[in-house]
């Protein structure tokens, strides 16, 4: 048997022994909840085995996960959307109300999307996509202008009317923000060559962007570590039933 095979068998034996111990001592309930925790822990460790190297256990766990996710999404689409918004209004309307025939329009447009599976009628799906994409674009335009352009420009130029009686280092912040916004916009304006004054302002914009990307990196590290903390917490507290700190 290869070294990897020995590791795999050894890991399985250790995992089984730990779970047998946890079940026998009552730390894990001998019920669907307990078996579920064992399955989750096994899946977690199988996926972590990728850190050693890519292996069949990792691939099997990954594919199982993908299959279950697909089924869960499909069931939610049925129960929360198609059943409630299409099937019930058409075939099981409330008492005293007739079928909501207008629902047939989006229902057929949705069914037209399915024609992408069949080559001959695929052109029908274009009508659905056109409606979907066109309406989405139309709804987005005025809202983006209002929320992400107009309501963002106003606080940027507010520094020009600040109450200068409120002195302190904080009074420098609004002009710095204005400088930053303008210089970043100049940096992203590629229709003019970045030389001379434009180049200088663009350089300032780059420095603002670097601070922002550095902050992003710091926050990204924090986020990733948090995810790891969550899994370690699950393995130690929920699976092994330990109360930290242990020593």
């Amino acid at each position: 048997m290869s070294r990897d095979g020995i590791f795999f068998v050894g890991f399985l034996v250790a995992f089984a022994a730990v779970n047998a111990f946890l079940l026998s001592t009552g730390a894990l309930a001998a019920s669907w909840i307990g078996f579920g925790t064992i399955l989750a822990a096994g899946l977690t460790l199988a996926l972590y085995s990728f850190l050693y190297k890519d292996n069949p256990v990792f691939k099997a766990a990954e594919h199982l996960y993908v299959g279950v996710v697909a089924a869960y999404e499909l069931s939610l689409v049925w129960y929360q959307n198609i059943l409630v918004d299409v099937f019930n209004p058409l075939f099981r309307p409330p008492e005293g109300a007739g079928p909501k025939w207008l629902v047939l329009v989006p229902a057929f447009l949705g069914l037209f999307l399915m024609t992408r599976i069949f080559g001959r009628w695929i052109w029908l799906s274009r009508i659905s996509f056109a409606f979907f994409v066109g309406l989405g674009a139309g709804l987005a335009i005025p809202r983006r202008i209002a929320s992400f352009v107009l309501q963002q420009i106003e606080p940027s130029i507010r520094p020009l009317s600040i109450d200068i009686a409120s002195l302190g280092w904080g009074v420098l912040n609004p002009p710095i923000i204005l400088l930053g916004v303008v210089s970043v916009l100049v940096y992203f304006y590629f229709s003019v060559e970045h030389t001379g004054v434009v180049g200088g302002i663009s350089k300032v914009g780059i420095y603002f962007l670097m601070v922002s990307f550095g902050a992003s990196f710091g926050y990204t590290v924090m986020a990733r570590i948090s995810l790891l903390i969550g899994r370690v917490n699950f393995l130690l507290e929920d699976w092994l039933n330990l109360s930290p700190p242990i020593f």
Partner: protein
Amino acid sequence: MERLLNIDRRIVYLAIFLGVCLPYLFSFVELPVTITADVRRIYDKIDSLEEGATVMVSFDYGPSSKPELQPMALAILRHCFSKNVKVVGVTLVTEGVGLANSAMETAAAEFDREYGRDYSFLGFKAGGAILVLNLGQDLQGTFKADLKGTSTSEMEVTRNIHSLKDFDYVIDLAAGFPGIEEWIAYGQERYRFTFGAGCTAVMAPDFYPFLQSGQLNGLIGGLAGAAEYETLIGRKAKAMGGMQAQSVAHLIIIAFILLGNAVYFLTRSPRKTSP
């Protein structure tokens, strides 16, 4: 020295893993959690709500962001239920349904809150930002029944809620798209409700412009933000417990970055420095 630049990556993995595990194994000195103004504003807003006020919480995250956002959700729900504030939950993403339901039921059970009277979970509908739009137009028409099939026009907690502007506060806990920007553009912009948000740490830097413009009244960023909120409500849970590990791991990563740079600059030849 140059071998240090090419050490087996599994040694780095082991260092990170030990850094995260150590605080769980050994007791550390209790480190202070600094409360930021962005988190405090959300706390103050919920704290100022009168008994019987109704809050909407949108759980727009899935299992991949659970360690950061679930502690945040639980802290906010516990705060609301402790003040007898009603909560209506919704989600824009399929993966959020199970986590949202679990968070609401866990927090409600701790405060003996009754489903239908004190809280309700509407569930999920496809459409992302357009769902936000529909909630603003006609909430009871969009969700004729909640996840359990109870009619929203009959349920006590949603009986008088017809639009997003009928809520006293709306909070979105988001991990990506659709999320906070969609709530701002399709909801807050038209219906002008007070809007707070929680997000993963990866996304947090993106939302500072909305804080300054007033479109967001507060922001809870990542596990650290959740720990701040737990400190404010006086209930230390998973977020606070993770802060020691977070601190150690950050120090390890900073040490690796500085070590990598030190070794790089010490080992590179003078010829490579010419522009």
